[in-house]
């Protein structure tokens, strides 16, 4: 195993009833990269993310994190690994009875004994890092727009300074401007916080502008995982349909330069 492989999936098998979602799936996640996972609806992208993040037990195969098999761990060891993972769910999955600030503070309060003012400062810093206006901190999730909920979910995922960040369709449901700002935000955070990002997406723009490598999930396994230029030319029919289709042409034409500036802006105002 090479030193820079953070997560190593080998022979993963996922079954729901009689339906086989993954079979003999292999995938590596390298340290410091942004890996985009794409595939048709129902191809098992989210199931793969949930399996790696430990939310679903695989029905076969192994998942290794830094060489350690994570599939048969005691609950204590599993939780220790969970704290090194940051997960952002599709709609934020914020706790609806807590304010945004309390949502972000929660992991800090649970796992660390810090003075309250420091906890609050760290949480507010994470909220500011994700580009949310500070008056959003005191609001409840129901009072936020979809884009703001995603940013708040990202702030909570980042609060324990994770090594690897899992994003489940981060740009779905955002307008094009908001989606571009979100892509830029993830790039900035990856560069500044030294993150590894595992990204499940449908958004071709994100793949082109954001991802170092792209893994295509089709026919129950990873067909190819490589730089996007190499993936485009893969002969698999689904890949051809996807990357040679009318939607890909626009995305490829507008490949932006890598963003170095601090992502700012906010998408959508509170309702």
């Amino acid at each position, binding site marked *: 195993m090479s030193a820079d492989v953070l997560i190593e999936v080998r022979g993963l098998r996922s079954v729901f009833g009689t339906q086989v979602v993954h079979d003999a799936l292999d995938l590596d996640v390298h340290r410091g990269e942004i890996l985009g996972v794409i595939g048709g609806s129902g191809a098992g992208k989210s199931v793969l993310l949930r399996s790696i993040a430990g939310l679903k037990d695989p029905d076969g195969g192994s998942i290794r994190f830094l060489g350690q098999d994570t599939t048969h761990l005691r609950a204590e060891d599993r939780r220790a690994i969970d704290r090194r993972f940051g997960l952002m769910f599709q709609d934020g999955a914020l706790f*609806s*009875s807590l304010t945004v600030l309390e949502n972000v503070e929660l992991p*800090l309060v649970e796992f*660390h*004994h*810090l*003075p309250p003012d*420091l906890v*609050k*400062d*760290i949480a*507010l*810093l*994470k909220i*500011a*890092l994700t580009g949310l206006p*500070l008056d959003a*901190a*005191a609001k409840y*999730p*129901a009072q936020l727009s979809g884009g703001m909920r995603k940013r708040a979910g990202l702030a909570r995922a*980042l609060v*324990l*300074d994770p090594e690897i960040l899992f994003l489940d369709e981060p740009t779905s449901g955002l307008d094009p401007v908001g989606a571009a700002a979100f892509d830029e935000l993830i790039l*900035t955070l990856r*560069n*500044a*916080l*030294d993150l590894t990002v595992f990204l499940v997406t449908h958004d071709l723009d994100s793949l082109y502008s954001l991802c170092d490598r792209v893994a295509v999930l089709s026919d129950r396994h990873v067909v190819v995982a490589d730089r996007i230029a190499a993936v485009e030319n893969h002969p698999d029919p689904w890949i051809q349909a996807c990357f040679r289709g009318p939607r890909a042409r626009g995305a490829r034409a507008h490949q932006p330069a890598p963003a170095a500036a*601090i992502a700012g802006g906010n998408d959508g105002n509170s309702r």
Partner: protein
Amino acid sequence: MAQKATVSWIRTNGRATLAMAGDWTLANAQDLAPAVAGAAAMRPGDPCLIDAHRLTALDTTGALLLLRALGDTPPSFSAADVQGMNPANMALLRLVSARHGQLAPARPVHASFVRLLERIGGGIVNAWHQARELLGFVGMMLATLGKVLSGHRRLRLTATVFHMEQTGLDAVPIVTLLSFLVGAVVAFLGATVLRDFGAEVFTVELVSYSFLREFGVLLTAILIAGRSGSAFTAQIGSMKSREELDAIQALGLDPIELLVIPRLLALLVMLPALTFLGMLAGLVGGGLVGVLALDFTPAMFIGRLHEMTELRHFWVGMAKAPVFAFLIAAVGCLEGFKVEGSAESVGRHTTASVVQSIFLVIVFDAAFAIFFMELQV
């Protein structure tokens, strides 16, 4: 294992230098925070340098603590100010510094007395709003009901029958069992007290009066409020939170006609029916205690019931059932319509629906008691 983090001031060539060492990470923050507070207190007035040669790790929490040690006016973190820090950590430090400058949280905290007044005022305004909303909703229900009955709108017969089964038939076991038990308890209580006066025989009147006039309908209404009123709120509320109600309106349909009227009609039919069953079960419970504990014969119990209890008590009880049914349906459906967005809101309104409908049932029952007393029926 994380290396212990330390912080100290060094003064060289007249300039102060803040020396950082070890892992400045979240894991060490607990020990580092007091040290940083101490360092901040000893901060010199003039601009200072940062020595990070012995720094082994830095994360956002560490960067935040460094800013705290440097106080309100941090340096620009140029290469000249910070020595021995790798570029990745420098980038992190600049990002945190830029964002930290934006933080200015100062939420106004009112004195507790003002907040008490605020909450009282808010509660009163809220109660007024709720009463007004309920009245408005009752008006809408009556108007739509009128249109349905006069044939201007369709009666959803399938839905009505479905809700009759859910709210009526399925509730028969629990209503009869509870009424039976309460009837037995009332008879027992009455027998114990009345025995001292040698008047056990009046237990029959106690059970029949209380069940025909009050308990039969009250117990049933409270059970149905908890069982079906809450279900109405949860059903309509979850539809509201999934935008199904908007879809109904967008299709040109009327949610009141589609969702509320069937539930209302079902309760209007089934609550009196259940009340009747509840009355019977209560009387049977009381009679059983009479037979087992007071040496009545069943024939004696029924005979005395016939002789002493007038039919009007039954009608007093039954007359209240449709009113309670209307209240429960109105509150249950209205709270469902008030749900906003989240699943948590569904839960909150379901609770509110049960509390309000039971409250209203008991208040109306008290009002009925006074009303019938004045009428002397």
